[in-house]
């Protein structure tokens, strides 16, 4: 594995951009709920929720129970738990995630969401869209659009003081 590089990705700067984009998407309407996808998306949703002064709490969704690669990977430990402190029926949802790649995680998250009710609409905002989609899923807003080799893994990290940073790893094994 190579040492982490930043690839000119300033996570904090991109977050500022995401915040602006989400503010526009919300368009001042109070009835859109933020739901962050565990784990990176959940961090983003929590900070967005606070920064944008929204009421209530953001939801967290785990894609663990609806993943489509269960037969290959099995029951992975620590996939996070879904926590939705509001009703889903008739609710407008904005999903937040850190990296959008094949789209399979989003598909699983939407399936999970549907176990709780029928949302009025679901939109998506991400920090980084790295292309390589395998399903017809598009974000309404992405702070950055980049290209990475398939063997490279991009992940968001959060320091103790809450600052975000990106790590890129080569999949050696």
């Amino acid at each position, binding site marked *: 594995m190579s040492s982490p590089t930043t690839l000119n990705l300033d996570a904090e700067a991109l977050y500022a951009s995401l915040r602006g984009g989400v503010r526009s998407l919300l368009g001042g309407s109070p009835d859109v709920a933020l739901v962050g996808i565990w784990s990176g998306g959940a961090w983003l949703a929590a900070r967005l929720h606070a920064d944008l002064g929204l009421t209530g709490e953001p939801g967290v969704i785990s894609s663990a129970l609806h993943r489509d690669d269960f037969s290959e990977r099995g029951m992975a*430990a620590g996939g996070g738990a*879904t926590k939705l402190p509001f009703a889903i029926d008739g609710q407008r949802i904005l999903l937040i995630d850190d990296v959008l790649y094949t789209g399979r995680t989003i598909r699983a998250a939407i399936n999970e969401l549907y176990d709780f009710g029928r949302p009025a609409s679901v939109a998506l905002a991400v920090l980084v869209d790295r292309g390589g989609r395998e399903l017809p899923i598009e974000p309404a807003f992405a702070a950055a659009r980049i290209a990475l080799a398939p063997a490279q893994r991009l992940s968001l990290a959060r320091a103790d003081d809450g600052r975000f940073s990106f790590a890129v790893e080569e999949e050696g094994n």
Partner: protein
Amino acid sequence: MLSRRNPQLNRHGELIHLLSIEGLPKAVLTQILDTAGTFLSVNDRDVKKVPLLRGKSVFNLFFENSTRTRTTFEIAAKRLSADVINLDIARSSTAKGESLLDTIANLSAMHADMFVVRHSESGAPYLIAEHCAPHVHVINAGDGRHAHPTQALLDMYTIRHFKGDFTPLTVAIVGDIVHSRVARSDIHALTTLGVPEIRAVGPKTLVPGDLREMGVRVCHDMAEGIRGADVIIMLRLQNERMSGAMLPSAGEFFKHFGLTADKLALAKPDAIVMHPGPINRGVEIDSSVADGTHSVILPQVTFGIAVRMAVMSTIAGNEA
């Protein structure tokens, strides 16, 4: 002699069959308990199903009758979106000629992915696991006197839910331990999870001295056994034992080893009372205790479904 690898684990140490708690590392048990927590929340949703086992066939092979246990496995499998087929193979039909292994071979030909087996002979699930096709997973729903691992796991989940940390606990298991697969599995689980004091309580005919070899303290006096306990697990006294050579009567058993309110007062004030069910009121446990504030018998049943979902999903995801 050569020691063989535990047939429950694959090359990577992952669980592929659940046959017994013996020999399972603490990490495996803890992972199942953690996963069970996730499934507990699923059971509270409107849509109580997740697709993890969709397209898989789970065959319930009950060579020994049990509607309760079979039903909980069926519910668990269906909540994971599996197809469930129930086979009640009463002993008499196997006596009609088809051997145990022929039955397994026939079922494997029907593309079973998982067998949930209950059998009256200790060790039967091991034989089945040895002889079924490599991709088929076996879960032991109770074999003879030997093991009932899913019951032990839900018992551990219950204890963890109400007590948190295993390491300072005193647990008393009361009743017909020598014939109990639940007791054996509970003892292995408690030991593995670090419970320092486990007491086996009952008359000598039902709690013989050999049990010490399993790492428990043998008590033939109920008061001594219950005193200061954090958890009391009452076992069902089977009809066959109640009269005859092992015990003179249910009445005498209840007087000395039944759990009543005043005996319960000897345990810790926040002690919990458990029972694998079905309970014999007035034989091993008084109604006031079974229905009282210390009793967690009903939560055990709820946890049972989540734990079985956790076991099935964990196993199904690991390759032989």
